[in-house]
C-alpha cells in the first residue's frame, strides 16, 4: 500500500520545495529557479501516473505488449516547452528590472518603489500649490 504511493509523496515534497523557493526567495532569479523546480516536479507526477509496471517505452516493437502511457508523455513534452518559454520571458523581465533598478532583490525594489511614490505625491502637491 505504502509502496504504491511512495513515489507520489516524493514528488509532492519536491513540488512543495519548488513552490517554497518561489514564494520565500527575495531574489528574482531564484524565484524563477523555484518555478522551474516546481514545474519539473509536476512533470514527474504526470510521468509517474503514466508508468505501467513491466511496461516499456511506447515505441511499438515486436516482442513487447505492455507500453507505458504515451499520452502523458506528450502532455509533458508540451509542458516542458511551455516551462522553458516562461523561464526565458521571466529572465528577460528580470534583466530589464536590473537595468531599471540596478538590483534584483524584491525588498530593495519595493523600497525604491515606495520612495518613488512618495516623491510623486510630493511633486503633485507642489504642483497643486502652484496652481
Amino acid at each position, binding site marked *: 500500500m505504502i509502496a*504504491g504511493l511512495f513515489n507520489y509523496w*516524493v514528488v509532492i515534497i519536491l513540488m512543495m520545495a519548488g513552490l517554497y523557493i518561489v514564494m520565500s526567495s527575495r531574489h528574482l532569479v531564484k524565484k524563477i529557479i523555484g518555478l522551474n523546480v516546481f514545474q519539473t516536479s509536476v512533470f514527474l507526477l504526470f*510521468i*509517474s501516473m503514466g508508468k*505501467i509496471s513491466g511496461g516499456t517505452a511506447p515505441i511499438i516493437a515486436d516482442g513487447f505488449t505492455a507500453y507505458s502511457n504515451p499520452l502523458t508523455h506528450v502532455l509533458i513534452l508540451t509542458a516542458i516547452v511551455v516551462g*522553458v518559454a516562461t523561464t526565458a520571458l521571466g529572465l*528577460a523581465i528580470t534583466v530589464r528590472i536590473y537595468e531599471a533598478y540596478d538590483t534584483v532583490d524584491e525588498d530593495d525594489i519595493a523600497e525604491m518603489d515606495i520612495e518613488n511614490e512618495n516623491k510623486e505625491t510630493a511633486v503633485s502637491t507642489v504642483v497643486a500649490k502652484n496652481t
Partner: protein
Amino acid sequence: MLVATVIIIIRMEKLMSAVLMTSFFSLIVSSIFMVLDAVDVAFTEAAVGAGVSTIFFLAAIAIVGRVSKPTQRKKQILPLAIVLCTGAVLMYATFDMPRFGSPDAPAQQHVVPRYLNESMAEVGPPNIVTSVLASYRGYDTLGEVGVVFTAFIGVFLLLGAGTRKSGIERTANPVAGVESMRQSIVLREVSDLVIAPVLIFALYVQWHGDFGPGGGFQAGVIFASGIILYALIYGIVPAQKLIPPRKLAYLPAVGLLLYAAVGVYGMLMGANFLDYDAVAHDPLHGQHYGILIIELGVGITVAAVMINIFFSFSERSL
C-alpha cells in the same frame, strides 16, 4: 537524492551554484523519466532543463549578478504555511490515487488503448508519442509552437533583437565564464570536434522521430545548443556572422507558418484543420508527409527561438 538537491537549492545563496544544482536536478529527473519509460520526455528534459534553460540562467546571471541575500526568517512563515496547506491537499489526494505502476489505472484505459493499438494503422510511426504529438493532438503541438513563438516575441519586445543598435557601451560583463573558455585551447579543439557532430545529431533526431525518441523539439533544442556552444567559445560576433540575426529573426515565424500551412492545406483539400489524411492521396502517406513537415516546422521554430533568445541575452551583457 532529488530532495537533497532541492534543499541545497533552497539554502544556496550563490546563484551560480543554485543554477548548476537546478541543472543537475533536471538531469536526475530526466534519468528518472528514462526509468519510467518516458524516453522522449527524458530526452527533452535533458536538452531543455539541463541544457538550454541553464544557459539562459547563466546568461541572465551574468547580467544581474551572482549573489542573493539570505531571506529573513520573518517572511518565511506565510510561504511555509501556504506550501504546507497545498502539500496537505496533495497528500490527502494521494490516498485515493491508483497505485503506482498499476496497469488498471483509469489513465491507462479509455483513451490510450486506441493510441496503442490503432496508431500504427491510422498514423504510421512506431513511436506512439510522435503519433499522438503530431497527429492525434497536433493541435496542442501547434499551440506549443505558439507558446515558444510568443516567448520569442516577448523577449524580443523586451530586450531587443540580437543586433546591437543602441550606442550605449555596457561595462564588460560577458556571459559567465566565457573569457576563460575562449582562452582555453583545449576547449576550442574539443568543441571543434563536438559542434559538428552535435549539429548532425540534431538533424538525425529531427528525422528519426518517427522510429525512436526524438522529433522537432529535441532536434531544435539540440541544434540550438550546438550554435550556442559555438557562440560561447568563439564569441557572439563570429556566431552572428555565421547566422545573421536579421535573417534568424524571421525563422520562428517561418516554422510556425509552415506548421499551420500543412493544416490549412488539409482544409483546402476539404478535410478538417490539421487532418493530414488529405495531404496525399493515401491517408497513411498523408500522415507521413504531414508529420514530417510539421516536425520540420517545430524544429525550425524551436531552434531559431532558442538561438534568438540567447543572442538577445548576450547582447545585453556585452
